[in-house]
């Protein structure tokens, strides 16, 4: 696939990084030659210096035969205009724009083909905010991802001694946790995936377990693998940047919130944007005196969201030492994130990976609805729709154990009834979530959620979904 990326900032870089490994042809356009040189040295891609809204620059970057434009320049304006230019002048089939302003959301008529011609709006801040919000809602989980319009969730959780399933084999699940259907799709032990998970695999304390279940059953799943904590009430947020403010706006009604922000003018802005119950504190989040004075040991959750990785790591470590129950840090550098995840820092969030999932759905072949990047990009979970029939597709009308899945890939759940027989989206659909077993039969138009433990297997999985040409 030919992909044109506008803007070599943090988002552009991580998008390029994750797409280049999938054998895509990538061209990056940016105004900063030094930045581009750096990128070109590290990754196998082409770079063009210039302003990406100018047709001449786009042409030089080979926009004419580009399949996908991803505009992630720092300014919303640039991205919107670039999409328009690419669509109008060069008929680029798919355009994605990073737009920070919440006033231009997906579905806004201004973004249609006649308007700015943006097919998909991505907003990394929003994705990270959603990610964190899920973690606040389910503090025991490492990550919660939704599929099939939120009907099914993939839950990553660390098993802790004391959970009913810990020290038991998977075959015992139905007896131990009756009523709640779940499917364990992967177990990571000491950061290595266990291959060949079957009924006899035992869950050990410390394992990172990936479970697919109906969204309604998330709490049951979490309760099965570890003792439930008391719900989160008090939260301290370090850093009142874009993510901090978004998060505070969404959760201030339900939680007691304190925000620490080092820039005084920003503090004042936060105070105008948030109700008076939210306490805005001016200071450094790595200042142990401030943390102590503000009772960090009473906090159920400490979230470090500043733009500085080192500060986030230090303030998280400090908060944990001072007694915060659970600490979450946003860490941009993947190496750092891998380093600290699961140490004193309970969860390290790599923001670039949260948004990549949204992009991947456009890069994948087949009828892919959603892709989520897991374990900071190493693994992937994807939701795709089965089209065709037994003759034209290698998935349709087959039992799960008849499929030729790559080793480790697991079909976790099937959602049936979202589409009518002719494949169109059903109105007032009454979809059914089926947790997959070896004898479950996959029917056409099913949404299938597959866990892929290693990224290089994605291609093989995609092939399973592809419909042979005779279908048309």
């Amino acid at each position, binding site marked *: 696939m030919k992909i044109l990326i506008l803007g070599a900032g943090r988002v552009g870089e991580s998008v390029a990084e994750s797409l280049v490994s999938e054998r895509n042809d990538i061209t990056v356009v940016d105004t900063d030659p030094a930045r581009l040189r750096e990128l070109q040295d590290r990754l196998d891609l082409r770079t063009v210096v210039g302003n990406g809204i100018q047709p001449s620059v786009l042409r030089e970057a080979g926009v004419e035969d580009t399949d996908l434009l991803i505009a992630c320049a720092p300014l919303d304006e640039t991205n919107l205009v670039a999409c328009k230019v690419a669509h109008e002048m060069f008929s680029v089939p798919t355009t994605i724009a990073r737009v920070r302003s919440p006033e231009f959301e997906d579905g806004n008529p201004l973004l249609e083909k006649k308007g700015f011609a943006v097919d998909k709006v991505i907003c990394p801040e929003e994705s990270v905010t959603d990610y964190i919000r899920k973690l606040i809602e389910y503090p025991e989980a490492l990550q919660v991802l939704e599929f099939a319009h939120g009907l099914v969730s993939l839950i990553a959780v660390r098993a802790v001694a004391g959970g009913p399933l810990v020290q038991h084999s998977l075959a015992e699940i139905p007896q131990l946790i009756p009523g709640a259907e779940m499917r364990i799709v992967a177990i990571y032990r000491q950061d290595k995936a266990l291959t060949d998970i079957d009924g006899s695999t035992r869950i050990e304390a410390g394992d990172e377990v990936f479970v697919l279940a109906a969204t309604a059953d998330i709490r049951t799943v979490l309760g099965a693998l570890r003792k439930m904590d008391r719900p989160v009430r008090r939260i301290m947020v370090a850093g009142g940047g874009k993510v901090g403010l978004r998060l505070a706006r969404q959760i201030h009604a339900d939680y007691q919130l304190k925000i620490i*922000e080092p820039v*005084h003018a920003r*503090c*004042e802005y*936060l*105070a*105008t*944007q948030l109700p*008076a119950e939210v*306490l*805005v*504190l*001016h*200071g450094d989040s790595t200042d142990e005196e*401030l943390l102590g*004075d*503000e009772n960090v040991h009473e906090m159920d959750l400490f979230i470090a969201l500043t733009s500085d990785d080192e500060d986030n790591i230090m303030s998280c470590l400090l908060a944990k030492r001072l007694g915060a129950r659970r600490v979450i840090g946003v860490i941009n550098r993947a190496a750092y994130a891998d380093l600290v995840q699961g140490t004193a820092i309970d969860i390290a969030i790599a923001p670039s990976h949260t948004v990549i999932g949204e992009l991947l759905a456009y890069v994948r072949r087949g009828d892919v609805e959603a892709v989520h990047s897991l374990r900071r990009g190493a693994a992937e979970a994807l939701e795709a729709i089965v089209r065709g029939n037994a003759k034209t597709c290698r998935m349709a009308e087959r039992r799960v154990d008849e499929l030729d899945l790559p080793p480790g890939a697991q079909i976790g759940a099937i959602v049936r009834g979202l589409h009518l027989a002719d494949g169109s989206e059903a109105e007032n659909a009454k979809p059914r979530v089926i947790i997959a077993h070896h004898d479950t039969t996959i029917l056409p138009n099913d949404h299938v959620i597959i866990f892929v433990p290693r990224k290089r297997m994605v291609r093989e999985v995609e092939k399973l979904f592809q419909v042979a040409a005779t279908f048309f």
Partner: protein
Amino acid sequence: MGTLAVVALVGRMTALFALLMGVPLAFALSEHDPAEGAFLKAAGITLACGVAMSLATRRFRRELQPRDGFVLVTLTWLLLPAFGALPLLFAIPGLSFTDAYFEAMSGLTTTGATVLTGLEKLPLSVNVWRCFMVLVGGMGIIVLMVAILPLLGVGATNLFKSEAAGPMKDQKLTPRIAETARGLWATYFVIATACMFAYQAAGMGWADAFMHMCSTMGLGGFAAYDDSFAAFKSPMIEGVAVLFMTLAGVNFSLYFLVWKKKSAWVLWRDLEARTYLFLMVGSVLAVALFLSAHGVYPTFVESLRHAAFNVVSIATTTGFASVDYAKWPVFAPAFMLFLCSFATCAGSTGGGIKLIRSLLLHKQAMSELTRIVHPRAVRPVTLGGAIVPTQVMHSVLAFMLIYGSVMVVVTMLLLFSGLDLVTAATAAIACINNTGPGLGEVGPASNFQGLTDFQTWVCTFAMMLGRLEMLSVLVLFTPQFWRK
């Protein structure tokens, strides 16, 4: 100093004011009442003075500087009551100039305190003039001038600010200030017309409806009867009065916005208006429960009726009375006077500190309290999602300080002149807040007639200070102001 330029403008305002006398004159002519001659004479003198002032200083006309605005406003508010007093002086035999000036000032500042008794025996046109002055003074004489005289130009914004009430006067509703002034007067006029028809429908005669509409909309409190609203003995009329007094206590800019945006949400979203509404409803219920607990009236419904009328009347600084509430257990009248010092909204026709200042001070106090517990907390005072500038907070604090000092000085002067403490203190509150009746000798059952000339003049200036929110007047007494 552009004193002469100011005089030129005051002349034109005076001439315009003479035209306003046409309204009572029309009543006098149609009724053939004995005040016909008085109004003709007064209007003639006023017009002549105005034209003379304007012509004599014609050469000095120029754009006003910000400083001139304060001189102009104060001068206007000193002179116009004098002209407004003329018809009263001519029509009511034996009335002293002191009393006539007090009466006119009371009308124009929408105070509603009176030195006259036997109101029903006065010619109709005199009562009409008293009430009409309330209507004009309510939205503001200067605002009216800005709206209809094209001459004020850029300086008009400063003038507007020096008369408008409230701490934040920089918000223009329209790009042009004259447009804003016109919009405000149009809104005022529409609600006033509705009020008049409502009174008529509730059972008043047309003349009564007009007079009491003027008094209600300006939140003044002049009535055409000594017994005020007790004369009507009609719950319907009281209900209409309560409704329109409440409406007139809201910032008129909001009605303007409601009209422009065609959405009543504007009112609800405004913190001040919302608080005002809750404050009114809560106070009425509290007083009603208090009265019924003390068995003042046989039924709760009756308690509620009298509480609703009198509490709203005093709290909005109107000053109508339907019963002698001074006879209620002392908490109720004291609470009502307390309310009148801050309950009305900025930009309404009411007087006092204004609710918005109280809200800002409350927020400031809360933020100081937060800072005691959390020394690093950043909690600026905000209003509608924006930080209230420190200068505004300082001006609010300065206003409160000056307001308190003026209150003390006026009370002391009245005590010095021989009044008892209750009368002196409540007269000061009633005049500075432009409410009208106080307690004691100036209570709702009596009036300011019993005061000596000295006391009357003190009260007169207290009313003016209150209407112009102290600062616009007091700035003239600072040496810096006059330094070249």
